[in-house]
C-alpha cells in the first residue's frame, strides 16, 4: 500500500514534469492564446485583447515602449506576431516551433543583408525585421494562416 502510494506520487511527479516540459516555452506563432500570457509574463507586460474581423488581436505592452501583438484566428491559433520596442524580442520564444525553420533559412542567406533590415521568406513562414538601435520593429506570419479576407498589410 505504502509502496503503491509512493509509486503513484513518483508517477504524478513525473507526469507533472512531463507536462511542464512538453508545454513549449512561450510558443507564440502557431501556439494558442495561453502562450500569449507566457509571452506577456516574459517581458513583464500587460495583455489586452480586442476582437477584429476574422481574428482576435492580443496586445502585450511592456516597459520602454515595447509592444508585441499576436493575431489569433477563430480556431484559437496564433498566425501572426508583430513587435516594436527598444530591443529585439526573443525570437526563439515568439516564433515557437517555427524558429528552427527561420534559423535555417537565415543561415542559408549569403551574403547577409544590410544590417538595418532582415527578411526571411519560405512558403510556410515570413519573418521581417528592421530598424536600428533603440527602435526595432518587425513581424512574422504564416502566409497560409491568414483569415480569408485579411491582407498581409493588416499584420501591423
Amino acid at each position, binding site marked *: 500500500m505504502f509502496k503503491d502510494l509512493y509509486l503513484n506520487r513518483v508517477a504524478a511527479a513525473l507526469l507533472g514534469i512531463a507536462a511542464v516540459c512538453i508545454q513549449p516555452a512561450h510558443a507564440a506563432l502557431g501556439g494558442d492564446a495561453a502562450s500569449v500570457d507566457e509571452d506577456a509574463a516574459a517581458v*513583464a507586460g500587460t495583455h489586452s485583447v480586442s476582437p477584429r474581423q476574422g481574428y482576435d488581436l492580443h496586445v502585450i505592452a511592456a*516597459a*520602454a515602449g515595447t509592444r508585441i501583438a499576436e493575431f489569433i484566428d477563430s480556431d484559437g491559433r496564433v498566425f501572426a506576431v508583430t513587435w*516594436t520596442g*527598444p*530591443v*529585439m524580442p*526573443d*525570437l*526563439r*520564444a515568439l*516564433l515557437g516551433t517555427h*524558429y528552427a525553420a527561420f534559423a535555417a533559412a*537565415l543561415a542559408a*542567406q549569403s*551574403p*547577409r*543583408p*544590410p*544590417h*538595418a*533590415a*532582415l*527578411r526571411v521568406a519560405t512558403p510556410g513562414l*515570413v519573418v*521581417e*525585421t*528592421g*530598424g*536600428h*538601435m*533603440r*527602435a*526595432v*520593429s518587425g*513581424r512574422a506570419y504564416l502566409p497560409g494562416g491568414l483569415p480569408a479576407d485579411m491582407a498581409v*498589410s493588416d499584420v*501591423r
Partner: protein
Amino acid sequence: MYAESRRCAAAVRTALAAVLLGLIAGCFGGKGGPSGVTQPLPTLNVVTITVDSGPATATGAINRPYVTVHVCAAGSSTQCANIDHVLVDTGSWGLRLVRSTLTAAALTLAPQTDAQGNALEECATFGSGQTWGPIARADITLAGETAAGIPLQVLDDTQSGAPAPATCGASGLINGVADWAANGVLGIGVFAQDCGMNCAGTGAPLPVYYGCTAAGVCTAENVAVAAQVTNPAWAFATDNNGVIVSMANLQDANGDASAQGQLIFGLGTQADNALPGSGLQLLGADANGDFQTTYNGASVSVPGLLDTGSDSYLFDDPTIQVCTSAAWVGYYCPANAPLVRTAINASAAQTAASVSGAAGTVTFAVGDPDSFVANAAAYGGLAGGAGATRFNWGMPFFYGRPVYIGFEGRSVTSFTGPFYGY
C-alpha cells in the same frame, strides 16, 4: 670665406626666421593687436571617409563608409593601434570593435566590471541582429580629437568571454568582421550613449547590459549612463556638439569602385563646420532618434532615419519588384529602372530638439541591381526593405550632399539636438 659664409648664413637664417614668423603671424591672426598674442592652433577635426570593397579579411562590401580609428588602452600612449575599415554609422551610438581585430593588433583593452565586480557585457540590438561582448574602456582618437577613457563594446567573435544569454542573438549574432564587412562600428548618431535612460533606471532591466560571473552566468542589469557604450564624437574635449558626413557624389550611380568623403567633427565650432546660412533642411528627432517620413504620397508617415550604416534606401513598397537573383536578396529590382520616387521628411511630433523646420520633399531614384556595374563598392540607387514599417535613408542618400548630425542636449546657433540636417 668661411667666416664670410657663416655670417651670410646667419643673416639668411635671421631673415628666414623673420619671414617665417611673419607667415605664422599671418596665418594665425597676426592682426590681433599690440599684445602679439596668437590664437591657439585649431584642432584638426576632419578624417577621411572611404567607401571601398572592405577589410582585407572580408572583401565584397558595398556602400560601406569606413574610417581608421586610433585606439589606445585607456591612459596609455604606447598600447595603441590604428584600426582600419571601421564602419561610420549615424544609426547607432558608440564604438564597437571586433575582438579578433584587436587581438591581431596586439591590443588589450581594460574590461569593465559592474558594482558587484562581475564582468559588464552587452547584448546590443541592430536592425537585423544583435552583438554580444564585454565592455572595455579606451582612448579613442580621430584626427586631432580624443575621447579619453570611454566605454566601448568588444564584439566577441572568438567567443572568448561569457557565452551570450539564450535570448541574445535569436535573429543572428553579428559579431564578426564578415558580418559587418568591417573591423568595427563607429556609432556617431544623435545620442550620447547606446541605451541611455532606458537602461539606467531602477525598474526591471532591459535585456541589454549584463553582469557576468566568472562561471559565465549573465544576468541583465541597469547601468549608469556614464558606464554605457558612448558616442566618441560626443565625448571629445572639443568639437563635440555634432558631426558632418560629407560624401562626394558618385561618378556613376550604377557603380563606382570607391568613393571618398569627410567626417567633420563639431557644428559651428570651426571655419570648416558651419551650418549653411540658407537652404538647410533641419529635422528634430524623437526619443528613438527618428524623424517622420511620408513615402510617395502615403496617407501616414513612418519613423525615418539618416543612416550611413545601411547600404540602401530601406522602405516598404509592394509595387516594386523584389530581386530574384541570389546576389541581391532583400533588395528591389524594379522592371523599369530607374524608378523616381519622392518622400517628405518632417520633424518628429515629440522631439526634445529646438528644431521645427518645414517639411521637405526628397526625390530619389531606385535602380536595378541586376544592371549595376559588377564588383563595384559604391552604388547610388540601391534600395530594399519590403515589409518595413520605417523609412531608412541609407548610404545612397549621402552621396553628393553634406549631412549634419546634432547631438542630444548640445547646441549650434539657436538649434539644440537631437536633430538631423541636410
